[in-house]
C-alpha cells in the first residue's frame, strides 16, 4: 500500500516577493522587559564580585568546588552551604573570535571582535569553567591553555554583575 513520496509542500518566497509587497506580512514587536530574581547563591556570587572576589561553593560529599556557586550539588543532589573563595585567574579552556553581534549584525571593520572564552578558574575543581571575555590581547595570539587573570572595573563602577570583571587578560 505504500508508495514513494513524490509530493513536497512548502512554497518558497523570494526577496522580491517580499520587497514588491505582493506577499502580505503582519509585523509585531514584543516590547517586553524582564527583571530576574538573582536567587540565593547567585545573589552572594554577585555581591562578592562587587567586592572584587570570586566565590564558589563546595559539596561536602563529592568535594567539588563549583562555579557559578549553587545551593545544591547536581551530582549528589544534596544541599550545599560551604562557601570558598577561589582565585581571579585561570586557564583558557576554549575561545572564539566572533565577528557577529548577538542580533546577527556584523562587527564593522575597525571595531574589535568579541573574544568569548571558557576559563577554568584557579582554585575551583578541574574543568570548572565560566564563560567570559578576553581582552588586552591580539586575537591571533590567543591559545587554548593560556593563563589569564581578571581585569576588574574600578570599585566605584561595580554594580554586582558578572561584568564587574571587564575581561580576562593573559599573564
Amino acid at each position, binding site marked *: 500500500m505504500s508508495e514513494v513520496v513524490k509530493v513536497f509542500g512548502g512554497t518558497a518566497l523570494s526577496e522580491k516577493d517580499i520587497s514588491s509587497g505582493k506577499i502580505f506580512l503582519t509585523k509585531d514587536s514584543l516590547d517586553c522587559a524582564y527583571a530576574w*530574581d538573582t536567587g540565593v547563591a547567585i*545573589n552572594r556570587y554577585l555581591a562578592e564580585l562587587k567586592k572584587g572576589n570570586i566565590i564558589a561553593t563546595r559539596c561536602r560529599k563529592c568535594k567539588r568546588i563549583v562555579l557559578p556557586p549553587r545551593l545544591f550539588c547536581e551530582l549528589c543532589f544534596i544541599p550545599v552551604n560551604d562557601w570558598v573563595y577561589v582565585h581571579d585567574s585561570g586557564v583558557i579552556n576554549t575561545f572564539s573570535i566572533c565577528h557577529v553581534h548577538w542580533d546577527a549584525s556584523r562587527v564593522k571593520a575597525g571595531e574589535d571582535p568579541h573574544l568569548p572564552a571558557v576559563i577554568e578558574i584557579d582554585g575551583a575543581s578541574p574543568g570548572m569553567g565560566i564563560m567570559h571575555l578576553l581582552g588586552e590581547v591580539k586575537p591571533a595570539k590567543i591559545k587554548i591553555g593560556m593563563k589569564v587573570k581578571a581585569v576588574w572595573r574600578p570599585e566605584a563602577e561595580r554594580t554586582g*554583575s558578572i561584568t564587574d570583571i571587564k575581561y580576562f587578560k593573559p599573564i
Partner: protein
Amino acid sequence: MGILQRITRNIDNRYWDPGLIGFPVKNSYTAGVAGQRFFEEIKENGRIFGSKCAGCDLTYVPARIYCERCLSGLEEKDWVDVGDEGTVYAYTEVHQTKSGEAKEKPSLIAAVKIADGLLIHRLGDCLPEAVHIGMPVKAEFKPKNERQGGIEDIKYFKPF
C-alpha cells in the same frame, strides 16, 4: 543563606536587570497560503471568503487549506464567498489597554460568527448598551486605497 532559609521581606530580594535596553526583536508573519488569498479578496474586492469541507459540512472562516476535522485538503473549488454579514456570538467591553492602564473610552470586541467560523474583531458605530449576543453585524471595510492585505482592512463590524 542555606537552602532552608527564606527571604521574608521582598526588599531583601535582589534582582538582575539585563541592562540591554529591552530585547529589540521583532516578528514578521506571512499570512500563509490560505491567508494570502483570504486577504487578497478583502483588499481587492472587499469580500470575505471561507472554505467548505463537503465531507464534514463545515465552512471555515477565515478560509483554510485543510479541514481540521478530517484533514482533507480544501482547494480552489471549496472556496465560498460568505458575504460580509454575521452575528455577534460573544462580546466584551474593554476598559484597559494591554499594559493595564485605563482607556479613555471603552471599546467593544466581538467574536463575529460567519458561516461556521468566528472572526475576532472590533464593533463600531454601536453603543455598548445596544450590543447583544445574536445581534446582526456587517463588516465596515477601509477605503480600498488604504487596505494593505491584513485583518485591519476591516475597520470594524457594525450593527445594521
